[in-house]
């Protein structure tokens, strides 16, 4: 009897499509800069940031099941790493050096956040549920308070409570979109692979996962580190969008905003997080005409949403994982995968 296998498009077409899509964002972004309304473009770019933040937090909270409230803290670390460096060296970053250097600084911001994630994660991930939430909340607040106190490090201006201003404006639709794609592809491919299945196993039953030979601590820390990396990336991008950084931007309300995206989209669903990130960036903008009632309406919508669909927009599912089609496996469809 032949094995059952899902039918899917060849991998190389998917890989090429991803590269082409990212490349295509460059001219699209230039066109947007020229012709699109600044305000609309700003919202679009921030949707990209929201996607990065929500999907990366989903890896920690939804997929691995470790409830973290510290995402704004990781974002702050990335934002300040990027902001401080770019401001300090802005006169050296001209012409073609700029995009290359910006990729470097963005990655560096992500790595810094990831390293902090590692240091914070190893002790706190022993905690479960509420306790982990409180510990990560505390971590986020510590970051904010520390940033409030630091005026400068050597000749590098940090800004302290006055904030850091006049950071070069670099982030545009291209950077936002490209990083959002990278974040989604990396996390989706990681968790929906043989290597990534244990992330879900840890969420489902930690004891059973351990009994199946899974080093659960490793996977929890990995989720934390990868999630922190992308939060750091989003931080660098956001610093160079407005050009201003204020430690207060990264308080726990920001963390909760991201948690709301994950929960609303459906914990564990990457496509759910993407939809929720887009929706929850768009919605507050639409509600601006209601002025003072804006936050009330926003909160009401969330309450209604949770009452009607407590599992979130997509629940546990992914948009691309439509019911698998069973096909008889043969030599021809070997080498095909999602």
């Amino acid at each position, binding site marked *: *009897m032949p*094995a*059952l*296998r899902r039918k899917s498009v060849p*991998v190389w077409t*998917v*890989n090429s499509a991803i590269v082409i899509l990212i490349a295509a964002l460059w001219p699209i972004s230039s066109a947007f800069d020229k012709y699109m309304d600044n305000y609309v473009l700003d919202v679009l770019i921030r949707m990209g940031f929201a996607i990065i933040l929500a999907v990366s937090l989903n890896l920690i909270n939804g997929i691995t099941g470790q409830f973290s409230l510290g995402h704004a803290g990781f974002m702050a670390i990335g934002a300040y790493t990027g902001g401080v460096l770019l401001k300090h060296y802005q006169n050296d970053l001209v012409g073609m050096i700029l995009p290359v250097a910006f990729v470097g600084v963005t990655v560096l911001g992500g790595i810094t956040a990831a390293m902090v994630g590692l240091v914070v994660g190893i002790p706190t991930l022993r905690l479960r549920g509420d306790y982990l939430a409180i510990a990560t909340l505390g971590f986020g607040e510590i970051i904010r308070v520390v940033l409030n106190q630091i005026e400068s490090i050597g000749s590098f201006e940090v800004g302290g409570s006055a904030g850091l201003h006049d950071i070069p404006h670099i982030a545009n639709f291209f950077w936002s979109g490209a990083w959002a794609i990278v974040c989604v*592809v*990396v996390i989706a*491919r*990681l968790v929906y*692979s*043989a*290597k*990534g*299945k*244990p992330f*879900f*196993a840890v*969420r*489902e*039953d930690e*004891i*059973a*996962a*351990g*009994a*199946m*030979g*899974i*080093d*659960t601590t490793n996977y929890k820390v990995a989720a934390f580190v990868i999630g922190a990396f992308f939060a750091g990336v989003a931080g660098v991008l956001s610093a160079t969008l407005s050009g201003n950084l204020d430690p207060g931007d990264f308080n726990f309300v920001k963390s909760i905003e991201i948690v709301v995206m994950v929960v609303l989209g459906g914990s*564990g669903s990457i496509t759910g997080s993407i939809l929720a990130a887009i929706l929850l960036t768009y919605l507050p903008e639409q509600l601006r005409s209601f002025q003072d009632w804006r936050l009330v309406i926003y909160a009401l919508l969330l309450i209604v949403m949770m009452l009607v669909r407590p599992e979130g927009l997509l629940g*546990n599912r992914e948009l691309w994982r439509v*019911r*698998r089609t069973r096909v008889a*496996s043969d030599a021809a469809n*070997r*080498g*095909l*995968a999602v």
Partner: protein
Amino acid sequence: MAMLEIKNLGIDFGGLRALTGFDFALDQGELVGLIGPNGAGKTTVFNIVTGVYSPSAGDVQLRGASITGKKPYQVNRLGIARTFQNVRLFGGLSVLDNVLIGFNRSVAHGFLGTLVRSRKHQMEEHAQEDQAIELLREFDLVDRMDDLARTLPYGSQRRLEIARALATAPRILMLDEPAAGMNPQEKTDLMELIHSVRDRFQIGIWLIEHDMTLVMSICQRITVLDHGETIAVGSPREIQDNDKVIEAYLGKAEV
């Protein structure tokens, strides 16, 4: 030397002595039972052997090397797999994924291979998927492989848990009350299944069970625990006639 050897194992929980002087040996291809009244310490033995608890005395050896104090995931990687008294499946994942997670350890391709979906990655995933499906077929679960594990009927959940444990390629399989909650037909099927698993995989099976018919008919040897102490060891026949065992289960006859 036996595959699994346990010497003088003991554990205290606070002031309570849950297990004392427990000796045991299990070899490849053997099917051995562990019985005793509720609270006798059976699951405690399993939990110590699989690294959930650290014993306060004694040693557990697998192929001559001590595994005492190892973490559960390390014990599993060394070749001991288990199921749980209160089924612990990955309920929100598909039946197939439950088994695939058991194969996880053998993933050889790197992180980058996973991200670009390299050829090696695809080959490995397909090979694992084929193996997993093969295993599910043997356990009569292949028709439901895409369903969430929690939606399976209870008997099937128990079977899936055994299949998942076998996916980690153990030398020793420990089953904690595999027949609990099953109806008579399911129990009969389970007995056949356990037999065939032992014969096909050539592993040692150690099981805790309350269903005496099942234990007596499939186990070669039986250990009886009561209040943390071993009160009898022997063949099913010997155990059935043992006074101490009868006393532990039914109480002492008054006269």
